[in-house]
């Protein structure tokens, strides 16, 4: 199952709609890494609101994703982790360390705006895409 990836300004937004198999997750990872290159995106948001479980494979894949995307010069934010899911994750010892997280899409965009504004010099336009 393909995860839809939207382009908003120079960000990519991937919204996961339902439970993903391992293969789907890997496909998403590869698609995002590839598209970051194609569109020269500076930020990637992965919305996992719809995931009711984040197990060791999901966490590992998201960490790899963030790492690979950083190698391409872009920032990744994982948003929408549900309270129950976060609880299970920490019990299992999975902490998504080194990967930025935010509450939801709105917070994720705010985070990227703030972080990337401090990194790069050019004035950003105030209009939202």
């Amino acid at each position, binding site marked *: 199952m393909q995860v839809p990836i939207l382009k908003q300004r120079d960000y990519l937004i991937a919204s996961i709609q339902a439970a993903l198999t391992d293969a789907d997750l890997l496909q998403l990872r590869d698609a995002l890494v590839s598209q970051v290159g194609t569109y020269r995106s500076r930020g990637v948001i992965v919305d996992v609101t719809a995931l009711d*479980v984040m197990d060791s494979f999901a966490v590992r894949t998201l960490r790899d994703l963030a790492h690979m995307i950083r190698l391409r010069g872009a920032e990744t934010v994982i948003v929408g982790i549900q309270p129950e899911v976060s609880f299970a994750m920490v019990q*299992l010892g999975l902490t998504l360390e080194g990967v930025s997280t935010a509450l939801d899409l709105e917070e994720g965009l705010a985070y990227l705006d703030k972080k990337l504004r401090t990194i790069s010099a050019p004035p950003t336009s105030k209009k939202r895409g």
Partner: protein
Amino acid sequence: MPSQEITVPVNADIDIVTARQKGRELARDLGFTSTDLALIATAISELARNIILYANSGEILLSVVENGTRRGLKVVARDDGPGIPDIERALEEGFSTSRSLGLGLSGVRRLMDEFDIVSEIGNGTTVTVKKWRL
């Protein structure tokens, strides 16, 4: 209430999703809290993943168990893999959750109330876990 028992064959990664969804449904029928549902689904996901990683095939058995007035969910993860050579090591805190190997059995034990493992070299592994409704 008729005792329910569901068996999910685990052969491909898509079965991991099936197993944990069925487990979640059964747990919901038992009246577990939403937090417990997440714990149970995550534990099943890890157990099913171990089957895929280490064996050709296996199965997850989900059933309702009773203990006096308490009711709970029992999950049995059985596989025909090579077996775990050093169970003690596998259960060590933090062993392999960060590596590419799946195990994470110590984590699964933390998520559930009861945990038991039987593994014999050349004879497969059976992990039994239970969670009780408060």
